[in-house]
């Protein structure tokens, strides 16, 4: 929030460079995406994407349907290649390590990078508690006390604890859509990820539930790096520090959210953010 506020104070005649420097201190690069291409069968979904994502920021990928924004986010935790016929090439460097390196186990990568999906997908047979604990149990953590602590912490982190603390044994499917989505966020947080990928997390939710998720993004980015895919421009403007505009599998423009919305460099971006297409 602060970054956007401070940006407002800057007078319009400040040059681009000083604006960048004054807007916020340079943060450490968390993920750098280098020359990523992705395919579904023979159809190319991503064309040579290059991007730096900084630590403790929220970055929004936006663009019209089919522009590749979901594919890109799914390339960042190697989920894309799980789809039959899909493949990805290029480098995604997480803290200096290329996650597409041959020596890297994709399973380990997913433990460091959490993911929340378009539709809430809690495990239907499990209780609220077990849903959050699922990742811990999958990774062989057996200490009951530790699991309990992390579950409580994660539910608190996802802003759900107060609502469910007395019904942890009830099935997760009994919650409302927005609560289910926050349950899924808690499930991802329980793994203590460094990055949280959110693939249109509010597209199936009502406005109130959506705003709760957006508040969460603001809160969570203090501890981790968030990348959020959205087709909702207002949402991108509200939650993201950086925004990337994609079109037909290409990265058209990437920069500070403010700049993308108010002073885009590309005409295509301008037309998209002003609602002329998409």
């Amino acid at each position: 929030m602060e970054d956007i506020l401070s940006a407002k104070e800057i007078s319009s005649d400040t040059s681009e460079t000083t604006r960048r420097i004054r807007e916020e201190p340079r943060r450490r690069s968390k993920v750098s995406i280098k020359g990523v291409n992705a395919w579904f069968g023979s159809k190319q979904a991503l064309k040579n994407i290059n991007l730096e994502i900084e630590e403790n920021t929220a970055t929004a990928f936006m663009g019209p349907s089919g522009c590749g924004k979901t594919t890109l986010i799914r390339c960042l935790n190697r989920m894309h290649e799980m789809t039959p016929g899909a493949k990805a090439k290029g480098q995604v460097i997480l803290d200096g390590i290329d996650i597409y390196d041959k020596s890297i186990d994709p399973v380990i990568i997913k433990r460091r990078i959490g993911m929340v999906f378009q539709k809430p997908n809690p495990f239907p047979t499990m209780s609220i508690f077990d849903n959050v604990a699922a990742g811990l149990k999958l990774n062989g953590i057996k200490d009951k006390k530790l699991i309990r602590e992390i579950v409580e912490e994660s539910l608190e982190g996802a802003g759900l604890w107060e609502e469910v603390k007395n019904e942890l044994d009830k099935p997760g499917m009994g919650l409302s859509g927005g609560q289910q989505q926050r349950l899924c966020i808690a499930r991802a947080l329980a793994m203590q990820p460094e990055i949280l990928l959110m693939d249109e997390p509010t597209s199936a939710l009502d406005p109130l539930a959506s705003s709760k998720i957006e508040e969460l993004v603001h809160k969570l980015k203090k501890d981790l790096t968030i990348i959020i895919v959205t087709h909702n421009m207002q949402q991108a403007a509200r939650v993201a520090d950086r925004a990337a505009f994609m079109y037909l599998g290409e990265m058209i423009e990437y920069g500070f959210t403010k700049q993308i919305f108010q002073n885009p460099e590309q005409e295509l971006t301008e037309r998209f953010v002003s609602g002329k297409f998409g």
Partner: protein
Amino acid sequence: MLILVAFAVGEGALPIFSAEGFQFVIRTDWNAVYGRESFGALPYIIGTLLSSAIAMAIGVPISLGIAIFVTEMASHRISTPLSFVVELLAAVPSIIYGLWALFVFRFWVRDLIERPLYEHLNWIPFFDKTPFGLDIFTAGIVLSIMIIPIISSITREILLVVPNSQREAAYSLGATRWGTLKTAIFPYAKSGILGASFLGLGRAIGETILVTMIIGNAIGPAAIPTTLFSQGQSLASLIANEFNEAASDLHLSALIGLGAILLLLSMIINIGARFMVSRMVKVVPGGRE
């Protein structure tokens, strides 16, 4: 229809139940000689249950394995022909399996499985009998081959409807393939897989001609299997064996009585399966997408 059948079977079985009472179910002798008639169904109930249990013990894990391999692991190029072949197995008439088992397969079972087990593990009572090849164990194995196509193809359909979002939920938590199966896929598909297994069990219990050819057709107390390699008899196979030569009314009624027990048995299994499935579905409110 079911009521009509049940009524006819019940009526036919009435004389034997009025002559022997409940004793019919728990007695072991079987004597059809006129004047010295006595009939007990226990050995055949055991034979039916044991051969089906062996079939399930072998068939269910293999079926699950096939279904998991086809849906979760194999590429399209392998999975499509494989599931086609497995389903083709379901189209083979059981008499063909019976002939093959009688002339070929039972020697394989005897020489490759039963003999080594007997020679090395005969201190375990299950295996302590010189194997002959026509016995409860072979019948169970052949039955399992017969039920594998059914169970595996239904299980495959069930796994295919598990939504991808469930798989991805597990994968995104850093689950391995096995972890995903255990956490996301099995719990979701559990009730359906159970239903598929019981469908296979129903088939195994009622299977007649195949079992008649393989099981050894023992009669009376000798038909109580003391080892896995004993000759036995199932309810259905005994009916098939003796129906043509049933001389007295009481003998005929005894055979129909076996049919009544068989009918009851498969009803119990079916209702039990439905009960278990519905109870599991209740645990998952709105679990289906």
